[in-house]
């Protein structure tokens, strides 16, 4: 009996067949990678998220140095970061949406989600003048650069805020430090657009920017970024099931005694407005447009220890910080910014491992003060 066609297909593969399979696989691989380079689909793929649908959105932006324990990870895709955040949910009709921008003190380093600034502000049940309920969203990110805040704000504006509260500190302000944040370095195209649009005093060709080569734009080159997006989504299940998004290690308390050290980076007394990135703050206010922005000089730890007459804390010599405060107040006045200087609001006992990280009580104190200011406006 002759072989039927189906029995032919089950025959053992010959050399030609194997070569054809390998060539086709290689061809497909090359085509897929070329298509991937042309379409650059990562931003679009990063927006596909299980957050806010299968699992609740995160209360703060993804950040984590021990993903397997914190069920959280640091990644560079701002699209994925926002897609995982509760801020990307549609706004309710009666919601007055307030975004809190800033660094690790806003994000809540060493604080549980219930003890962050946004959480305490939400507990105050504030009502906007038009009767809507104020809902505060934590958009802090634990890297310190005002340009990083501006980058995040440029994405946050898509989520329809009614008010922006931008907390910052001198450490985030030096013009020369604006590209220190890995998030900024790894989003060169977006940051360059901001530089061009707002004429920022940042070199768009700075070598800190991590520019992608053609190879980096292939599936293979972007495998880590793709894996990060996938991992962020998988960790969503752990976040939903445990409510954990950070580990809380034992820590050394913030430093109290210091060397006789007057230095603040490369700067010499006095600081000038050109030394600091007020252009970035101005760009943020401009970007917000009709949405009001409250700028807050966030509380710092004020040491009473050795050489505390020279330095306020590990970060700041007194001269630099005093100059910064004066300059910030001047700039706010000159530009008509709404500015709150809360630098000495929180007692020294309410700081944890650094001069800007607050305890739950410290966060609560700050929330009360900010809440009062909002009500007074």
């Amino acid at each position, binding site marked *: 009996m002759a072989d039927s066609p189906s029995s032919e297909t089950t025959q053992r*593969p010959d050399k030609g067949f194997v070569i054809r399979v390998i060539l086709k696989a290689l061809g497909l691989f090359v085509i897929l990678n070329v298509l991937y380079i042309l379409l650059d689909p990562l931003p679009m793929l990063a927006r596909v998220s299980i957050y806010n649908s299968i699992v609740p959105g995160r209360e703060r932006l993804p950040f984590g140095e021990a993903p397997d324990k914190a069920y959280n990870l640091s990644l560079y895709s701002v699209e994925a970061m926002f897609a995982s955040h509760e801020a990307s949910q549609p706004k309710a009709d009666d919601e007055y949406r307030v975004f809190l921008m800033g660094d690790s003190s806003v994000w809540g380093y060493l604080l549980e989600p219930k003890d962050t600034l946004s959480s305490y502000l939400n507990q105050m049940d504030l009502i906007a003048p038009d009767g809507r309920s104020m809902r505060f969203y934590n958009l802090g990110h634990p890297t310190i650069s005002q340009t990083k805040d501006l980058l995040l704000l440029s994405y946050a504006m898509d989520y329809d805020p009614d008010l922006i509260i931008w907390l910052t500190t001198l450490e985030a302000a030096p013009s020369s430090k604006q590209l220190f944040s890995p998030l900024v370095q790894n989003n060169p195209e977006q940051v360059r657009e901001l530089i061009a649009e707002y004429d920022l005093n940042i070199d768009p060709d700075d070598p800190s920017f991590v520019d992608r080569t053609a190879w980096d734009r292939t599936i293979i080159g972007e495998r880590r970024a793709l894996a990060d997006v996938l991992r962020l989504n998988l960790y969503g*299940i752990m976040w939903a099931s445990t409510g954990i998004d950070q580990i809380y290690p034992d820590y050394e308390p913030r430093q109290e005694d210091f060397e006789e050290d007057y230095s603040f980076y490369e700067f010499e007394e006095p600081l000038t407005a050109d030394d600091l990135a007020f252009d970035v703050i101005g760009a943020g206010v401009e970007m917000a447009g009709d949405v009001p922005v409250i700028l807050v000089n966030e509380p710092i730890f004020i040491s009473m220890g050795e050489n505390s007459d020279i330095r306020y804390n590990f970060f700041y010599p007194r001269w630099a910080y005093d100059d910064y405060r004066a300059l910030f107040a001047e700039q706010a006045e000159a530009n008509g910014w709404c500015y709150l200087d809360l630098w000495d609001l929180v007692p020294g006992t309410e700081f944890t491992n650094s001069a800007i990280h607050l305890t739950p009580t410290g966060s609560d104190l700050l929330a009360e003060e900010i809440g009062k200011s909002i009500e007074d406006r």
Partner: protein
Amino acid sequence: MTLFHISIFSAAAILFSVLAKGRWRNWLMLAGSVLAIYWVQSVTPIRYLDFWLPTATLALVGVVWALSWAGGDEKPDQRETLITAAVLIGLVLIVGLLRYAGPLCCLTPSRPPQIWIVGIGLTLIAGLVFGVERGLTGKRWAVIGTIIGLLGLLIVLKTEPLTEFASAGIRSLMGQSVEQASAFDIRWLGFSYVAFRLVHVLLDWINGRLPAVSLQEFVIYVVFFPAFTAGPIDRVDRFVRDLRAEYTFTPTDLYEGGQRIVIGILKKFVLADGLALLALSGQNALQVESTGWLWVMLYAYAFRLYLDFSGYTDVAIGVGRLMGITLPENFERPYLKTNLTTFWNSWHMTLAQWFRAYWFNPVSRRMRTAKKWPVWAIILFGQITTMVMIGLWHGVTWNYAIWGAWHGLGLFVHNRWLNVMRARLRKLDERPALKKAYNVLCVVFTFHFVLLGWIWFALPTVDMAGAVFAKLFGM
């Protein structure tokens, strides 16, 4: 094994398949496997242990071969034995000499000991194997003693307090801090599988079933690199048959072997590693706040475990195939089985077959012959002891023992159920739709029985497992 290891192994296997012709095939396989066991050994905090553990594996292989070679009718070829011994010594010396190879250092994860120490070690090992070969070959008591020794070593390595104690001993010998001794100091990669292959050989020698195997073939069998770290546990007679068969590399081998490797990589590094992020573990079991998510994590654990282990097996079988060795299957769609007995015929099959051959069958036979025990008692005893031992093979803890007992009891109940229901179940053949529905129900039930059993397997303590059971059922 990492993706890098697998890539190198696959490339080496393809190269091997092209280059290895005639008698060179086995020599290349021997050299590749011996070097691979040094390469895959993980680093240990005890100085030079990552060199000595693979060396000890080779020493054990030599001792067991020397004890059992007389099992066959044919005398081994003296010349080939000496050449094999010289090649083995040469390979270990090369690994040791890489210490001095500057940028080429080292195959082991840390620097090997000075070459004179390696020389002394090798001399002692050669003396031991030679002594065994001269004085103990064919001595039943020595074979039994070696089996007990191998199992004892396995128990030490699987029992945390004993491993910690052993670590303290080795640390003091090496002049390292005894206070820092930990059970994780002695990670003897592949030993669980090596020990079972060696015990299988010795038991087959006792039973007169061991074929004559040359030292070269025996070393390849025990440390064959694709199956070294995660099995399967092949039988020596079957393995050697493949080794001796005429080997012609065909496109089919490349196609089917390559396909198997790709499937294995996908299972292990994409699916299993993805699921690992949310699989139930000792860390997250008590952190979970809701019952629903706990179930999700348990399902994730079950599939992660299967995909991880069967993925490694696929890679091992695929690489073996490229080299002309058809390793036995270890998994055959286990989660789609209609009862626990067929599940255990399709999950870690080579381990289950090992225990069936060397424990369950002989014990059941002996009890039946004694005619003192009712059938149900023989089955109960056989199933429970077999499964508890399979559990303890993974580690000597209460949870593994309970996991084993869980399955042993399940197998017993299934056996009795079948005994009672056989006639009625046969009637289902006349009603195909009902039979199909019944089978679906059986698959769901069997899977969930296995699933709940994984709680014992996944978690480190009985208390934690109890708490998870309570939460899963809303208690």
